[in-house]
């Protein structure tokens, strides 16, 4: 019976690895974002708007936090310069998107299984299943889930702006949670194409909209299960591991060389993010 199938799979997806959860991955899409290269220019964010049918909400709704940018650039100022007259270095930019956690805090709290873990290692959001409880966004430490407080199709895409909408991804309606999908529609096309040609997906044959746009190529995207992929090599080079590669607890990175730049944001929360950041680099000239 399909219902049984669904509930069984659901419970497996919901369990963490320590409980024998479903982690029979086909792919594990992951990223590496180099903060030495990121210039904070917003190209990635706009690419995301164009690719993923993100609604423009306007000033008033923006002020209430109803904005929809799946990819945002956070900007911080150096804390040790709080007393200085001027910042003697630039800003700290942090592109922040769904970290596609391996042990995602958003998943187990969904009352209707609208968000779950896919065999590709993604935190999926099934829009037509979502009832809008918003538990998931409350539980997300990265603040990367966005809720449709309003129905945007009419206001955000007055004709003929609607002609730009990408038919490969749905337009979400009021009451639905949405978030970065690692451009799952592009993943799908790549998987379909590979399957049609009876081959495996080649590293670099597709990438996410943000990584494609980035003028400094700060964003790298690929399959962490493909040992030859550029992103796997970057993770290895910087000695960052998924915890279940070796069954390690997430927070224990055991980097042999702590001077390497790889880290994951808030990894001490045991979320096992799929996004590795490379530390920002600055000259010490002060």
């Amino acid at each position, binding site marked *: 019976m399909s219902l049984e199938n669904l509930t069984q799979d659901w419970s497996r997806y919901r369990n963490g690895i320590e409980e024998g959860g479903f982690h029979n991955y086909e792919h594990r899409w992951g990223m590496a974002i180099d*903060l*030495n*290269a990121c*210039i*904070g*220019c*917003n*190209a990635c964010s*706009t*690419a995301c*708007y*164009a*690719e993923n049918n993100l609604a*423009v909400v*306007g*000033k008033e709704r*923006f*002020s209430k936090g109803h904005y929809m940018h799946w990819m945002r*650039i*956070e*900007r*911080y100022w*150096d804390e040790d310069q709080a007393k*200085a*007259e*001027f*910042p*003697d*270095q*630039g*800003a700290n930019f*942090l592109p922040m998107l769904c970290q596609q956690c391996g042990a995602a805090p958003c998943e187990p709290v969904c009352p209707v299984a609208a968000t779950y873990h896919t065999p590709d290692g993604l935190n999926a959001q099934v829009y037509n299943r979502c009832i809008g409880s918003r538990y998931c966004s409350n539980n997300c430490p990265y603040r990367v889930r966005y809720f449709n407080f309003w*129905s945007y199709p009419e206001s*955000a895409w*007055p*004709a*003929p*702006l609607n*002609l*730009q909408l*990408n*038919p490969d991804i749905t337009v979400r309606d009021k009451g639905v949670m949405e978030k970065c999908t690692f451009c799952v529609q592009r993943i799908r096309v790549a998987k379909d194409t590979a399957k049609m040609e009876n081959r495996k997906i080649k590293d670099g044959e597709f990438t996410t909209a943000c990584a*494609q*746009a*980035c*003028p*400094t*190529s700060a964003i790298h995207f690929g399959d962490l299960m493909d040992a030859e992929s550029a992103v796997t090599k970057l993770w290895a080079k910087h000695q960052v591991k998924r915890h279940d590669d070796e069954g390690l607890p997430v927070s224990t990175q055991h980097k042999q060389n702590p*001077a*390497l*730049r790889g880290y994951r*944001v808030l990894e001490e929360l045991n979320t096992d993010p799929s996004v590795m*950041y490379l*530390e*920002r*680099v*600055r*000259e*010490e*000239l002060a």
Partner: protein
Amino acid sequence: MMNLKLKRREFLQLMGWSTAGATLAGCDLPTTVTLEEGKEEVVAYLSPEEYVIPGVGVWYASTCLQCAAGCGIHGRVREGRALKLEGNPDSPVNRGKLCQMGQSGVQTHYNPDRLSKPQLRKDGKLVDISWDEAWKVLDEKVGAAAKTSGARVAWFTGTVSGHQAALIGEHLDALGSRHHFVHEVINNAVGRAVNQDVLGEAMPRLALDQAKLVLSFGADFLGTWVSPTHFATEYAKFRSGTRGVLVVAEPKMSLTGANADLWLAVRPGTEGMLALGIAHALMQSGVSVPDAARPAVAAYAPVKAAEITGISAQRIEQVAALLKQHSPSLVLAGATVEGQEQGYQAASAVMLLNVMLGNVGQTIVSSGEFPFPQLRPRTGNTRDLVAFAAAAKDKALDVAFFYGTNPVYTAPASLGLAEGLQNIPFKVVLTQFPDETAAQADLVLPVASSLEDWGTHVAAYQPEQGVITFQQPLMEGLYPGTPGVGDALLKLLKMREAQKYGAFNDYFSYLQNAVASLPEQYKASGLTNKQLWEQTLQKGLLTVDSAPGSLKTNVGEITLHEVKADAEYPLHLIPSPRLGLWDGRHANIPWLQEAPDQISKVVWDSWAELHPSTAARLGVREGDVVEITSAHGAIKVKVYVFKGVHPDAIAVPLGQGHEGYGRYANGIGANPLKILSPAIEARTGELALYGTRVKATRTGVHEELVKEGRNNISQRSRKLVVTISAEQFRRTEGV
């Protein structure tokens, strides 16, 4: 791709490029799910190309026209709709990358405020007319002018190049006029003049990736300077491997400044003295100074420069030492340097550093001469704006054509342009949108969007070799009858010189002929004209290499005067350009309005950046509305308190304050350009855009600034962005 027997529209149609706009009416409400049979129409292709498959996107190469940098684009088209723009990897300018403005090209194209019908002023009001009437009126009016006073016809455009520029030139020649005014607010005209005088080339190639240190005086090369996407790709190389050092000196932190290793808040208008101070320190450490510049360098010992610029003598000496240590380097001057009454002298002082450090020939190299003068870019400036305003005021013009620029919005009120326009009897505006200039027009001609049009373009900054980029329509025009810009120009030319241009059905066939008649030495051997045309369109560009020359180092005398304090207007107004809204032309793009400013993170608004000490003196905090008054007007803006601005400066971003530019732009914020003084850069005649003094006063009004991540200023000791030293980077990853 081509069939000369067909009109463009017909062949597009036969190719299955559909008018997607036609089926808009009668949309269901979003919540109405109708899967019911027979309720919807499915319209099949008539006779599609083999490669057109429903459900599969096709990518076409074209050129981005969102700014003048000339990036190549690939546009994804599905079912006749352009859906997404990405960079063209074959383009040496942007190498497959595209900035947020470029990507928003689709929203310029699909903008709901686009004009679909021509408008004519009747009884003082603009009313819709038919295309036939529009062309007729145009023929009559320009014809009448041609008979009596062709020399009193003018074109006023933004930066144009390629065959578009050639045709504008031909049109003016046909009329016997020499009035082609080219205007851009965001330009590097003063820098080009300095380059021309010192190096012998207006826009040499800058090898950012070869530089071990870049010292930028307000040149926002990652954001708004010359060719930002190109320089961002170069920056990535500059920051990898041995990792170059970036030092930025400017009165207000730009996007480039926000990525600096060392950011120096220089007193506005004193950048030239800072450059001389650094030159002096270099001289002291044994670097030779060209004779002509020696008196100027000698006059600014670091201690004196420190006094003037607010940058300590130790810092000045440190920067000089860094420059000496990291060779070759690259020193750049941007808008804050150039936009002063002594901008040319200050930019020359910056260029002097390159000469002293031996960068010319290493990181600054000749780009050669582009072989086709007709197609060379006419780069925009503000001198032409001033000249045009004067010509209008003096009743020197009878007919003016406007294209690609919105001078009524960008001109400082002190130039009196809006009043002057009343003296031009017939003003024709070619535009996609109703804007402030179109509102003053006598005839408004809607033109095709850049995604619907043919064209060729030549970027002012050529990164590798001479390249003509090609623009082709990604889809059928949304509004039938709306001509491409080239088509409109051809039509105008046919009205004057029918025998010469009658052979060309349209701009498309004109361009095809142009490619076919390319001099043989530039054609790849073994290609037929048809193959050449198809290959060029497919690639999006045509390379016409030219042998690079060699650069000179003609340093002249440099004379800088002290910047005097103004007791009544103590603050320097910085009308800062944004990568996003640019000079205001992108204020009608919802994605860009909602994209937070990179530094302040403000959306949908204007703001005034004030240093905390200045804000404290004025008794204002973030969100308080201040009135900024110059001798030429006043604007009201909310305060954004920010340490990355010099206490003597107040920075208001460009782009907002529109009154007639559509639903997304109107009524938001203020336009700082309006209150600029008409002061002129002494050598070049450019407007001194950064030379206006203002005062700020409290209004007592407070409104919250809408920002992304309202309180995300500090990481609060969380490990979000971690910074390591460059030394450690070089140890673990360096080459």
